[in-house]
């Protein structure tokens, strides 16, 4: 399968599926659901194909920029004829889109994006399965669902900033309707709040992209490109000032605000609890599992590499924001009485680790910095799995009891033993119990933070106690105790088990064998770290970081 076909199908297939769902004849909801499930499954299968060709091609060893350089696109002077060279089998494709503004149809995968593409495929498939209970406007729901899947895939695939922005913005729309139509009591409020917050954030991103496109230091020509990799390779171009601030600082600050809103980090997080509480369960899974990762992905893929010097100048702000997010999220989670809101705030807290891991820029010894970014990346994957599982489990309870009030739950362990077991495991995974996936990420991040600032690291480490506090307390209020009114509740159905099982397996697997992911994600992350570090004048041997030691050491 050629690169173009494979990468394009990853987003085009769900897009075609969203139309196909609308065309399903008759009034049979089952046919619609089946079609949607089939399309999601095929998309996931495609992402696995991409994964296998990534591994078998040994692509983890070649930097994305080197691979991209082999795929060229030239427009002949005068005739306007386009000729492109596509190196087969390297998971990068570069085609023309709007030549006048040099906007390319530029897709590519490396460890960072591929891991999130896989996550997207998996979580979407599970969320689709979890959507079986939707009974209102089924066609519209699944059509929008697949549209959302298509745009999320596109975000992770795009390497052209314009293309990225198009997919990024397009994501809002299906989400707006999925929350607004199929949501809970205050759905309209939550939907418009989500829309406006994210739209506001994307303005910052757009301005940053425009600055990158047009900025020219004195006596030089602007780069006039949206090619993210080319811009990253030319960061020294952005050394001047704009409005009295360093260009890189401005670009970084703009991207940071845009993506922190999406992530979300305190103080831009207030849309998240509302959106989560009002969204239907599968959409919460997607929102927590994937959409929040778009923010983290934007930071790690765009914000840091595009403006490394600016990032270093502002990194302490980001680190502080990260720690504040960890603590604030955990404390707020502790105060919630709504089960879903609690899980939502736990997401805020966990995303704080991502922020902190990225921001702990120890340039004296970039090895530790690399730990932090690897940890952040791992946190995104781990959180994608556990938080999707947590929201799904909340949904399971809600389907049966129609309440999320923690005060009215309790004693579910007796009534639903399978549910209880799964819940325990996934919540512990989120808490960071050693041997489960969350632990690896937290260790990496805190380890990195210790080598950056003791104060922040101690606060972040102390937050583990808070995390344990709200998770254990929540489990106690939901599962333990006696509550006769819940007697005779049906345990998880086969379908629900099918949704939960992959998440459980992955929670354990990622906790025990982190190297199975870090082995192919790590090199890409390390290359980003090395580029950022060398742009800041740090020693270039960061590239030599042997990650296998670090990973092996932490999972003992």
């Amino acid at each position, binding site marked *: 399968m050629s690169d173009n076909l494979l990468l394009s199908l990853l987003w085009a297939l769900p897009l075609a599926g969203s139309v196909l769902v609308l065309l399903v004849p008759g009034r049979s909801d089952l046919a619609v659901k089946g079609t949607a499930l089939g399309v999601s499954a095929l998309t996931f299968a495609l992402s696995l194909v991409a994964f296998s060709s990534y591994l078998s091609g040994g692509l983890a060893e070649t930097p994305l920029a080197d691979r991209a350089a082999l795929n060229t696109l*030239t427009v002949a002077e005068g005739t*306007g004829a386009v000729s492109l060279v596509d190196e087969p089998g390297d998971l990068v494709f570069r085609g*023309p889109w709007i030549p*006048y503004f040099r906007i390319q149809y530029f897709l590519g995968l490396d460890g960072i994006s591929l891991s999130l593409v896989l996550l997207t495929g998996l979580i979407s498939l599970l969320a689709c399965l979890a959507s079986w209970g939707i009974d209102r406007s089924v066609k519209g729901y699944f059509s929008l669902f697949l549209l959302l899947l298509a745009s999320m895939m596109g975000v992770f695939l795009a390497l052209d900033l314009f293309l990225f922005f198009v997919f990024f913005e397009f994501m809002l729309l299906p989400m707006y309707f999925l929350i*607004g139509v199929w949501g809970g009591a205050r759905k309209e409020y939550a939907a418009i709040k989500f829309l*406006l917050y994210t*739209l506001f954030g994307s303005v910052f991103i757009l301005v940053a992209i*425009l600055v990158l496109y047009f900025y020219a230091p004195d006596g030089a020509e602007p780069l006039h490109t949206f090619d993210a990799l080319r811009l990253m390779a030319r960061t020294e171009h952005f050394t001047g000032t704009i409005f009295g601030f360093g260009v890189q600082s401005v670009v970084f600050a703009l991207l940071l605000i845009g993506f922190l809103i999406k992530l979300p980090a305190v103080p831009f997080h207030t849309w998240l609890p509302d959106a989560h509480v009002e969204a239907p369960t599968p959409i919460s899974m997607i929102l927590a599992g994937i959409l929040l990762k778009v923010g983290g992905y934007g930071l790690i893929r765009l914000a840091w590499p595009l403006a490394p010097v600016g990032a270093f100048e502002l990194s302490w702000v980001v680190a502080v924001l990260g720690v504040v997010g960890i603590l604030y999220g955990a404390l707020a989670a502790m105060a919630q009485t709504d089960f879903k809101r609690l899980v939502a705030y736990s997401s805020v807290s966990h995303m704080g680790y991502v922020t902190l891991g990225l921001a702990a820029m120890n340039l004296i010894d970039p090895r530790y910095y690399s730990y932090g970014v690897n940890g952040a990346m791992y946190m995104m994957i781990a959180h994608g799995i556990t938080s999707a599982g947590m929201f799904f489990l909340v949904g399971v309870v809600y389907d049966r009891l129609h309440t999320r009030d923690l005060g009215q739950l309790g004693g579910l362990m007796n009534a639903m033993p399978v549910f209880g077991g799964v819940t325990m495991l996934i919540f512990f995974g989120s808490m960071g119990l050693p041997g489960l996936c969350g632990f690896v990420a937290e260790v990496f991040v805190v380890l990195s933070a210790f080598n950056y600032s003791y104060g922040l690291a101690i606060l972040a480490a102390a937050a583990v106690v808070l995390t344990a506090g709200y998770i254990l307390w929540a489990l106690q209020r939901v599962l333990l105790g006696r509550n006769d009114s819940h007697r005779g509740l049906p345990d998880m159905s086969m379908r629900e088990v099918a949704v939960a099982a992959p998440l459980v397996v992955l929670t354990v697997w990622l906790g025990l064998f982190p190297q199975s992911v870090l082995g192919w994600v790590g090199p890409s992350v390390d290359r980003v770290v090395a580029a950022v570090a060398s742009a800041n004048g740090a020693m270039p041997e960061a590239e030599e970081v042997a990650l296998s030691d670090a990973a092996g050491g932490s999972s003992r």
Partner: protein
Amino acid sequence: MPPSSPPPIDFSQLWALSPEILLTLWGLVLLLVDVGPLRGRPGSSRRKTVGSLALIGPIGVFALLLAPLVAGPGAGGGDPDPTLVYGTIAGDPLATSFNGVIALLLAMVIGMSMAWDFTEHWGAYFALLLWAAVGMMVLVAAEELLILFLALELMTICLYLAAAFEKDKRRSAEAGMKYFVYGSVASALFLFGLSLLYGLTGTTFLDGIRRVLVESAAATGEAGGLSGDLVGATAVLLILVGFGFKLAAVPFHQWAPDTYEGAPAPVSAWIASGSKLASLVALMKVLLHALAPWAGAVGGEAGGGWVLIVAAIAAATMTYGNLAALAQRNLKRMLAYSSIAHAGYMLVGVLAAMVTVRSGSSAAEAAGAVLFYLVIYSLTTVGAFAAAAWLARGLGRDDIDDLDGLGVRSPGLAVCLAILMLSLIGLPPTAGFVSKLAMFLEVLNADASARSTLLLLVALALVNSVISAFYYARVLRALFLRRSDRSPGPAPRGVSWPIVLAALAAVGFGLEPAPLVDSMRSAASAMLTITLPPSPPDLPAPAPVAAIPVSGGMAMQK
């Protein structure tokens, strides 16, 4: 230009004016058909017959525009000479392409008009629509101030009358009255401005004015701008009042909300799209071509010119339009404020075009981006007004809340309407996004000395488009998030096809903008390079406006 020994009239030039002639005559035919053969028939039957007949007008225009393409070059007297009738009217790509756009908008407006019975006088109504289109076409093509003013008046007088056509509604009468009173004052001031301009330069030709101004600037050795030139400044201000009124730019916008709300939906659509389209093109011709030497600098030292005034108007217009739109409940009134806001965005583009005209780099690209935006905006806004026509037909009112539940009842049209709203917000992948971005890219591409001012304007515009998402989302909310037991019923064909067509355009040009961008760019380069046909020997050659290769092949990086 009274010719002492004039060249003979070339009647074959009339071929280039055939769309205008056709529509004028066809309007007369409609008038007579309505009072002649159809006399005594009930109103709704006359509405359908006369409306269908009226559609022949724009279709005929398309046929006339396509005929030279089919017959090949040289046929039908289509000559390469871009100016007609002693250089007063242009027959350039700008005029032909905009004739096509205006005919398309006219067809959509006629379709919407056939939705319901808001008047009895169908012959007069459709004739007015056609004649307003004639005014717009001439306005786009005008190369001379008197023709420009006449076309402007022809267009607006037809629209004054049409706005008041829903006789049994007081608001419609109010709409026509307000539009008329504001409009006539603005016209008078505009005419005074034009006369001052004539007094200062001694010519009424746009290109002639430009040459005189360039010459006098060269003679005095000043870099241009208006500093110290009181009369010139007055003329520019008065001309801006006239155009500002037509565009509904702040502070000349007060008529717009009342008129748009009160007038029948098709007429509001016609005012918001065609009238705005033609006026903005005329504004660009006058400012970018004739008055370019008076532009002044944006960030430089050369003193003030109209650029700064337009910048202030643009900033005020988009901000005010968006903030005021937030509070609206009526669909047409909301669209009125949205059209005010969009006028502000377009003025930013005009500024960028001006700055690039002066630095001579890519004038046609920047102006072409504005034209592209203008066309996309016109198409989408007509589609949005079609929804108002649908509501007015079914429910007799057109609040946003009346759209409730249409997502369930008419999912196809509701999706199309949603696409239109997204395009108006400027969300990808719609044409609204691409056109807005293309325009802002050109703005930022402009002369480096002006970049900081322009960057601020662009940032303001982007923040404004986020604000606008709030009120456009209100329509989305009504369509899909609400349920209602009142329904306007199924949409009539005249309403549905404009909506579908506009939505198709919004998506199609969003994914593949290149054809329209290219044609708009060639139109813009024609607009900026037009010259008087017989070059008077005593005047110097016009300052070179950079001739731009239209389809620029540029090497992309590897």
